[in-house]
């Protein structure tokens, strides 16, 4: 249930669940509980402005450390309020839909994901070896996408293909987690500062997007948000 048992024990448990009604009932109940727990509504995201307040309160290099950081932070909060409002406005403006048809990038990502699942197979290069997948993009893209295999975290690489998002050719890397297919779209955004990963929901899917080391990335899957975030963290640290 937690994906922690080795294969031999997992098979034993599955066998037992097939024949033992009360255990199967208990298993289903627990799964029901876990699904309820794993939805977004119980997850507390950092409130708007906390990041800005933290940056302001962290000791800057060269300055002397404040004696009572927490009190200083509280008095800064008021002063920073105007700056935060400005930043929010600017941040919201960046989220305007890019396409003239009014489709947002998130919607385009969902469409690309669904199309990939409708096709005969979601990849054009089938390989779990990133040494094969990465060079496949040579000559097809004007950048070299970062490709890593995350099988040791439970997310094996299935392969790659080209896709089209935000008005440009992008790399689509496909991973699997159990029976879930994950699409990771990556393209360069060379002057963009790092942006912490954000989870959004679109048409029933969970998406995570961010910017790291000059690469924009979008991740989409029908996994639960917790596992999706796990995958995103692995991806982010590999960029």
């Amino acid at each position, binding site marked *: 249930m937690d994906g922690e048992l080795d294969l031999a024990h997992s098979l034993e448990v599955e066998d037992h669940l097939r024949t033992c009604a009360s255990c199967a009932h208990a298993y289903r109940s627990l799964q029901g509980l876990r699904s309820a727990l794993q939805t977004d509504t119980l997850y507390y995201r*950092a409130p708007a402005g906390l990041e800005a307040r933290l940056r302001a*309160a962290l000791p800057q290099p060269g300055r002397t450390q404040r004696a009572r950081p927490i009190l200083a932070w509280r008095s800064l909060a008021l002063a920073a309020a105007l700056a935060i409002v400005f930043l929010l406005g600017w941040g919201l403006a960046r989220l305007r839909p890019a396409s003239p048809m009014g489709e947002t990038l998130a919607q385009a990502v969902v469409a690309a994901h669904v199309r990939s699942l409708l096709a005969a197979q979601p990849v054009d290069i089938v390989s779990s070896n990133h040494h094969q997948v990465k060079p496949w993009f040579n000559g097809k893209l004007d950048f070299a996408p970062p490709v890593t295999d995350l099988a040791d975290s439970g997310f094996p690489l299935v392969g790659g293909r080209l896709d089209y998002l935000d008005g440009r050719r992008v790399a689509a890397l496909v991973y699997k987690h159990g029976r879930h297919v994950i699409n990771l779209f990556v393209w360069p955004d060379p002057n963009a500062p790092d942006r912490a990963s954000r989870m959004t929901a679109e048409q029933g899917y969970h998406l995570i997007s961010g910017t790291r080391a000059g690469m924009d990335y979008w991740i989409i899957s029908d996994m639960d948000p*917790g596992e999706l975030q796990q995958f995103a963290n692995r991806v982010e640290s590999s960029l």
Partner: protein
Amino acid sequence: MPDPQGHRDFEQTVLPHLDAAYNLARWLTRNDQDAEDVVQEACLRALKFYSGFQGGDGRAWLLAIVRNTGYTWLQKHRVREQALPLEETHDLIPDGGCGPEELALRSVDKEILRQAVEALPIENREVIVLRELEGLSYKEIATIADLPIGTVMSRLARGRQRLQRDLAARMNEEV
């Protein structure tokens, strides 16, 4: 400490996990303002200890600091949990009488679910949050909470059990 590059590295390692830090702090302290205070203090400590960070999973590293900071904060600020009686439960198989209510947990009112998790004793609540909301493995939870893996497993099992019983009871009350 004049180290601009190190400072930037720190921000890049830590700030992407701000949501995870706040989420854990919020479930530990059960209060928005207190959670912010804990996150604030945890980040300051993280900055202080950043030179000891070997790389790897920034989220787990930060969450371990948040967890410690949270516990220290709770001790310092009086919060003494109501010691709920520990039920002596001998097995994890529920008795026959609870069928449909348990399976209906998927559609349980979110507020009731939130209250049920909040009502858990802190040692069960933290592992439930780390497992179900953060998707961390037993080993990662054991590292963050500084517990043996066996303890993580039993606290998780107890937490899930208590939630099931608590939710079944609350939903029965509504009828």
